[in-house]
């Protein structure tokens, strides 16, 4: 057994001087929704840094070419932010479905990334939206990294000891008609660990009913979120019609086959992804798609 030193820096400068001088394993705690459980399970860092008082890390800032979100922003704040809801609906939808109200009031964006869980709700969305992750290493020389450069998955990140995620930035979409959506399947509606996640960002011209470019990612079918290029191809440049949903669902099933064939969860997930896919399309395009039972059950 060892004692864990704890510190509560009041601002970034204090944090940097604290962390740069510390030795041993450093852990950060913000909302504590993951870290408290990790500590209960026996995690014992040498220094636990409480960043919940760093108000300068809790912000959502809309800039001309990007939107910056502080790492200590709570998921409740993210889910209810008008700018995020309008510009990045997938992110607001994902935040809204994490845990329960109590968890969302404490859990933070940075924590969700740093935990890097296979079912981490925000992760596929951040990857889909091409988020950059800003990291403050112990030397105090912050830099931004692509999502894949930080989140390795299955609980692992590329963050060096004592490095803190400070913010994420989302590039502004080039075209106005770009929209995004998120869909998740768990055992329950609320307070549930995701078994399947889909996120998509598309250009959609409502007038012509045509989809332009597409980015589509999936979560919980591998250690880290994955971009499903084969599914993107099915949607990109496509006119939205009755066959779209069927082709989309088929492509999703094939993508799940490719990701987890042989795993115990495979037979279920390759079927259930059809339902998640239709939920995603409905949120993305604002209209419901119906499949015949055969198409749905045996894609």
């Amino acid at each position, binding site marked *: 057994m060892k004692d864990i030193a704890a510190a509560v820096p009041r601002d970034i400068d204090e944090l940097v001087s604290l962390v740069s001088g510390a030795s041993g394993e450093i852990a950060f705690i913000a909302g504590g929704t993951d870290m408290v459980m990790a500590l209960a399970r026996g995690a014992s860092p040498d220094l636990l840094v409480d960043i919940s008082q760093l108000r300068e890390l809790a912000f959502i800032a809309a800039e001309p070419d990007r939107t910056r979100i502080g790492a200590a922003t709570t998921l409740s704040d993210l889910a209810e932010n008008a700018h995020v809801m309008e510009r990045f609906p997938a992110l607001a939808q994902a935040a809204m479905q994490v845990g329960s109200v109590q968890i969302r009031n404490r859990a933070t964006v940075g924590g969700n990334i740093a935990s890097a869980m296979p079912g981490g709700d925000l992760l596929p969305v951040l990857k889909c939206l091409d988020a950059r992750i800003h990291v403050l290493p112990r030397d105090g020389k912050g830099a931004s990294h692509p999502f894949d450069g930080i989140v390795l998955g299955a609980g692992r990140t590329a963050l060096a000891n004592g490095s803190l995620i400070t913010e994420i930035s989302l590039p502004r979409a080039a075209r106005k008609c770009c929209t995004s959506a998120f869909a998740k399947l768990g055992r329950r509606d609320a307070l549930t660990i995701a078994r399947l996640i889909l996120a998509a960002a598309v250009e959609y011209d409502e007038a012509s009913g045509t989809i332009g470019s597409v980015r589509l990612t999936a979560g919980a079918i591998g250690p880290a979120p994955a971009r499903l290029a084969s599914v993107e191809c099915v949607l990109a440049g496509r006119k939205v019609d009755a066959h779209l949903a069927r082709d989309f669902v088929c492509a999703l099933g094939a993508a799940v086959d490719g990701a987890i064939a042989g795993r115990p969860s495979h037979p279920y997930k390759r079927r259930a992804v059809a339902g998640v896919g239709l939920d995603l399309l409905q949120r993305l395009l604002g209209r419901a798609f119906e499949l015949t039972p055969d198409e749905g059950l*045996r894609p």
Partner: protein
Amino acid sequence: VKHVSTSHPILDGYEKVTGRLAYVGDMPIGGLLHGSLLFSPVAHARIRAIDVVQAQAVSGVLAVFHHGNTPDGGYNSSMWFEGQQALEDERMFPPVVRFAGDRVAAVVAETREIAEHAVGLVEVDYESLPAILDPETALARSGELTDESGNPTFNNPIIDVRFDYGDVARDFDSADIVVEDTIATPKTHHCAIESHACVAVPEPDGRILVLSPCQSIFSVQYVVAKALKTASSEIRVIKTPIGGSFGGKAEPILEPLCAFFARTLQRPVKIELDRTETFTSTRMRSKAVGRIRTAVDRTGRISARDTDVIVDVGAYSTGGEYLPASMSQRLCRLYRIDSQRFRGRAVYTNTPTTGAFRGYGSPQIHAISEINLDNVARRLGMDPVELRLRNLVEPHETDPVSGLALGNARVRECVEDGAAWFGWADRWRRPRSIGRFRRGAGMACATHINGCFPGYHEAATVGLRLAADGAVHLTCAVHDLGCGSNTVLAQIVAEVLDVPPARIVISAADTDICGYDLGTRASRMTYVCGEAARRVAEKLRERIRREAALVLNCAVSDVLVEDGHVRSSYGSERRLPLGALAAHVERSIGAPIEETETFAAVANPGSYAAHFTEVEVDSLTGRVRVLEMLASHDIGRAVNPRLAEGQIHGGIQIGIGFALFEDVDVCPSTGRVRADGFARYPIVNTPEMPTVQVLFIERRESTGPFGAKAVGEIATIPVAPAVVNAVNHALGTRLTELPLTPERILEACAGL
């Protein structure tokens, strides 16, 4: 009536929501030591050696306990009275561990952190033994239950219960239709908010005081004494406030250990399990697999039924030997069936130990019989409500096997009124949807008992004392498990004495001051203890009238007890508060106004219910949403309608979990519980709850207090079969393995 049939607020509700009520884990106790347990990671093994040197060396550790230095006395944690015969197959720490989660060792230290750290340093050398993880395989290991010296052999079956009545063979031969199903129910966990905890304190006189959130202080006292090989009077048990039990705390698990550690170390000791330990090492509902055949004629009359159930009770027998009989009884109290055959076997497996859980076998056997009955209705092309109405028992019939009277059994009203309120007929006839989201309607009936009569000493002893300030002190070994039984007893006493329920002071159950009582189990609180409370209150009322007659100078028959006062029906100007009367009597004759009454139950009527539900199944993901539930209950009288309604909401919550979500998921190769915490064991939370409508059928039961019958356990019994029947109705499937996980649902859909 003034105080019964009113929704009086729960007595300790304010203290609970404001955090003023201390549970045993939070009680400040000077010099408290902390115990931490080591559990077996393997399903079956002999312990070759335990190395405690490193653990013992940790600063702050007082002792390390294991099978080598603790009493080897066998006990059965379900025992509840002196001299009871039961399979005494448990020990504090066994030399052979029988399930992954069995107790191997314990460290007692100055702090919980030190104890937890040190217990991780205990090294155990296990010699692996073959494990039986499946109940059907378990049957093959048959033989005598004990050897020549009386030691348990762990052979199967623990018990083999059979009955038959009528001409079963003939009735099956002449039946128009026979429908057979094999229906399986999972092992599920109670998930009480308060995990298992206990404190034991050495008293100056050498006795051990056990503070326990339990369901029966006398059961705890007896089991602890037996485990410690000491006299029961050496153990004093006080029931602490309980953060939920549902049967999970019916059996003492930590108490024998805690008491032994405290006695050995002569310091108070606390053991408090965490959530995972509570899941893996305490108790759960037994798994049941039932093969059932039902014979009917074309009109839907059930002529015969044949039921064969195997109950997996896990590693230790506990009360498992009572389960098959308990199940069989339910099959004889709901429908009028010409002939029946039943066989129920309970078997040991090397999986977690099971025990009491709300309904005690009833949820399992009703899942088996009520799902099968819907399959019968389907074969007949008959409305399931209609099928049931043709076969239900009527009031005052007799159970053909036990000969017990069913009492004022109003199950027909439950079904008829429930179906009407729910709009059953329209929902049932609605054509099956072929879209993604498919709705279905389902229903199920249930019966349950009211106490243990005619079993072992089904009696309750209640004492009442009128204090000089007008308060009425109630003494009874009563264990409010959080559902409000104290409130209900207070309302009953208040009704008889015409005082506000808040003036009834109920002491915590304490073996030093209470008369023997079975404790909170078998849906007996309101029906048996409530009747004892009503009777002693009547007795106290008569005593009050006799004393008042002397003071008021009138005939006893002229004394009125009303509104907290006594007065003479003539000359109402002399009106004396009850407290003043008590004070006067204490001053003049020095004796308190108190009475005690032991009431032995004289009947065991059936409580009945019918639940109706509508579900929506996502045919693409296999997810089920329970949209609506109407619960119709034959309750005699709802003494406290809001608390009764609360019981039913909670029963529905557990029942939906049983139908759709919950399974501790014992790994078929290692025997380990895979769903060992809330992350992997989904329960029904508020967002999953349907709209609930409760209907009380209040036709008085003459043997119950003010006509009341039990509702606590039956509230959960019809839920699961109703939900399963609704899913099968929605999809046209014949799902028979609970819980209906999305995987099972999609598989069944694919097979259509």
